[in-house]
């Protein structure tokens, strides 16, 4: 199960935190979410360290960019914290 497929099938969504979250817990989704978020956190930490700011700030900024590039129909968390489809 790849991230692209999971997003297309509405299994995962882009959270405001800069990480992905489970929308429908089907076979393999939890494992994918854990793998992807672990990898993202490592990359965010590198950028944070290089620019002397917190990882959360980097992740929050990434969330804005990631939500903007989602395809129609894919899930994301809106400002009020609800899961909506683009």
């Amino acid at each position, binding site marked *: 199960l790849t991230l692209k497929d999971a997003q297309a099938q509405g299994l995962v969504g882009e959270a405001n935190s800069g990480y992905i979250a489970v929308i429908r817990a089907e076979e393999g989704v939890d494992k994918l979410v854990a793998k992807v978020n672990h990898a993202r956190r490592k990359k965010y930490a590198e950028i944070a360290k290089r*620019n*002397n*700011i917190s990882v959360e700030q980097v992740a929050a900024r990434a969330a804005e960019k990631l939500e903007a590039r989602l395809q129609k129909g894919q899930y994301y968390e809106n*400002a009020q914290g609800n899961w909506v489809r683009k």
Partner: protein
Amino acid sequence: QLNLSVAQHARLKIEGTHSLEKHVGEVTFAVPSIEFSEKQSLANLVKGLPVNLLHGTLSGKGAVDWSPHTLKATLDLDASQLAITHRDSFATGLSTSGRIEYDGSAGAVRYALPLTIKKFDPGIPIENIKMRVVARGSNKLPRIEQFGARLLDGDVSAPLLVPGDEGVFPVTVNGLRLGALGDALAMKGLSMTGTVDLQLPLSFTDGGVIVEDGKLRSHAPGGELRYYGAFSPGTLASNAQLALLAGALEDYHFRELTGSIDYPTSGDLRLGLRLVGKSASLDKNRDLILNLNVENNILQMLRSLQASRDLTESLEDSLR
């Protein structure tokens, strides 16, 4: 008689004598001028320094002489148009020259070095910096005299600054342009005009530089404060009074801006501002007085400004 002579090392020439019986001797050394550049920077010559020199020339010569009871040293230094980087800040056009004398028996260092820096940029550029750095023998603390600089189109000046001294040192900034401050902050939706004078009683503490009971006053005829998108659409919809204020903030003209300034070691600048003016959209005939308590962490601001630029690019622009 011990002759000390080191063949001219690529950069350093040392010569000296020492009389074993009389324990008297002297050494002279000279560093013919080193030209720093992008390719030949200080970091290439000496590893692990927190500072890098990548432009300008540096030269020096000196002498040390000693006898059983005395030790004297002089160093003549000449630095011109140095460009220095330190973490995410840089300085360009740093020049100084003069003599530093050390008298071992009195343990006193004496020098009076004129220092000019074309630009020091920790995130917001401070330009045309001039000062004299002076040490007068007995008093160990170096003094900064006649400090002057340009900041956000305002003239900064301080007659005397003695880092490490408990005193309070007055610093004034005249004609700081709020528009330049707005550009530097580059905050979405904020635009300001008008100029202000600042009085900043500065003191040095273990935790760093602080300002207590600073004052701020605008020049006549005042200026404009425009802040779009002060509140999110959600809050505006739910709060009529806030919507009124948001409208007023979008066309507010002040006749007078006065305020207090406090800057603690935490870096959290606190401004207590009072603006007297009008907003046509709110009420053409009645004054609108804004009491603004502004908190802005300067260290965070500078770090954010540093994070948002490419150090080498900005340095190259300044060297052009």
